[in-house]
């Protein structure tokens, strides 16, 4: 029983680390820029399919593919912000039309993936998938451990970028302190554009990690919408460290539920937590009161 419990907690932590990578981009867009990019998880799936193609064709390592494609996604993200800015934000229509826009975008990406790849599950091959380290009775399947490590490193990198560099601080200031931003001499549109770029870039990496962990099909992204939003809201909207903590909590909670009650209940965990948080503590568990 204890062994089962500890193993469930460990695999929850590993899973949670990966969730942080998925939620990271949303934490920047939703938490800091106030852009409700509901399509983010689907963009993660898009990243996963890129990893799948290149792994299948050239046998490249999925993590490497994710890292190489991050700059490409950065550019895509900047382009996306351009469209969003000119169509909605500039005219003050982001609340209704902006939301619906990302919803439509999510839908288009998903359908395009279905049309190209069908609804069969796809997976990647890498030497570490299938291996498991054991420390005592605790299992560390590398399929989970490698994504965990990469995700935590990426999250920490974004954390330090946000808190230590000029550009990063400008992003943190863009939603909270317009005056400070002006004093820094930064153009809010450019700052937001690069912030959305970074957010989408993390989706390329998160996608590569996802397809290491589990086989995917196009509609898997929908399950991550609630998870990612739950993590961002629980983590206190835009706090990177809060996002990591919340992701670990959700990961462990899901892992415990699926170990002891069965995996079919796991999706309800994050969504239920999200609903409760929204209802009773919208500033998040790890946010400031």
């Amino acid at each position, binding site marked *: 029983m204890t062994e089962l419990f500890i193993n469930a907690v460990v695999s929850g932590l590993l899973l949670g680390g990966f969730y942080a990578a998925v939620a990271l981009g949303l934490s920047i867009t939703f938490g800091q820029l106030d852009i409700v990019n509901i399509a983010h998880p689907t963009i993660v799936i898009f990243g996963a399919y890129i990893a799948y193609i290149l792994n299948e064709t050239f046998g490249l390592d999925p993590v490497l593919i994710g890292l190489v494609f991050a700059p490409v996604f950065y550019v895509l993200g900047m382009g996306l912000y351009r469209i969003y800015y000119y169509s909605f934000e500039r005219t003050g229509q982001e609340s209704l039309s902006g939301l619906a826009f990302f919803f439509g975008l999510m839908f288009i990406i998903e359908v395009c993936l279905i049309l190209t790849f069908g609804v069969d599950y796809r997976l990647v091959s890498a030497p570490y998938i299938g291996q498991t380290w054991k420390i005592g009775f605790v299992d560390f399947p590398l399929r989970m451990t490698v994504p965990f490590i990469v995700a935590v490193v990426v999250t920490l990198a974004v954390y330090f970028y946000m808190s230590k560099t000029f550009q990063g601080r400008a992003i943190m200031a863009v939603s909270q302190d317009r005056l400070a931003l002006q004093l820094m001499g930064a153009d809010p549109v450019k700052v937001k554009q690069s912030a959305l770029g970074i957010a989408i870039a993390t989706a390329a990496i998160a996608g590569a990690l996802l397809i290491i962990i589990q086989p995917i099909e196009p509609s898997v992204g929908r399950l991550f919408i609630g998870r990612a939003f739950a993590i961002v809201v629980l983590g206190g909207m835009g706090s990177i460290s809060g996002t990591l903590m919340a992701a670990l909590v959700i990961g462990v909670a899901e892992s415990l539920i699926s170990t002891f009650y069965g995996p*079919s209940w796991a999706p309800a965990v994050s969504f239920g937590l999200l609903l409760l948080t929204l209802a009773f503590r919208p500033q998040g568990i790890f946010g400031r009161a």
Partner: protein
Amino acid sequence: MKINGFWIGVLIVLALGYAFTFFVDNEFYFFAVYVVLQGLIMAVAWNVLGGFTGYVNFGSAGFFAVGVYTSIALNKAFALPLPLIIVASACICGLIGLGTGYLTLRLKGVYFAIATLAMAIVFETVANNWEYVGGAAGTYVLQPENSFFFDSYVEFLFMVMVILAVFATALSRYLSISKIGQGLAAIRDDETAAECMGVPTLRLKLISASIMGGLMGIAGAPFPFFISFVDPLSAFSLLIAVNAIAMPMIGGTAYWYGPVIGALLLGTIQEITTVTISSELNLLVVGSLLVAFITLAPQGIAGLIHDLKNGRQKAKDKSHG
């Protein structure tokens, strides 16, 4: 005058619907129109909260599915007649709308949007695990023998759907031209200003959310009898959620007739593309139309018509003055 025009239209639609059951034999047409009307009710429902009040509901499929499963459960447990089942589904979904609204409508609108999304998934998980109504494997629902004075049960369901669609449209029209509708429009434009002008914003938002939920419930209630096999995949279909947003957005959210235009247009296009091309491509058409309209014509078709009329009026005024 205008009121008469609308009610005459209602009578014509009801009469046409009834005549349709006499003169059309091919069941395919009943199925096709049923699906279009179901989309219409969902679109009208979504628009009561989304278009009139400015709060986006991403979880339309969740409300719809609660209607579907309420219907299955009541049918299985008590074998209630369909009208009662529809009323019960409307009440339950209305209460869910009220509850979600009460918990999240005091926050910024985007939280409501996310909460509805989350709620849909929670319901889907429950449906997947609730064996009584079929669980993940799904369940068969037998059509009752009695099809009243129609030739088949499908024709009966078709007529029920026509009546429900007319009811939903009339309710939404009443809302939009009434004092409540003006209050909702004020909330959509500027909630703080509305509150300071005496509009009881929370109360109106809750009314709007309950009506939205209730109408989605009535759209879902006849569905199990229509499709005869229900599993969570068909009840929580993403297409239902997308259509509920896309139809009003394309038709025009600010007017009661916007979602009606959008639903008839988009619904018909979908029926045609599904038959002639493929259902995936049909989804792509919906998504692309949605994004194209939001970016290029955010007021939708009704908005374009409205501008056109206004433009003519202004030109007229100028030539006279």
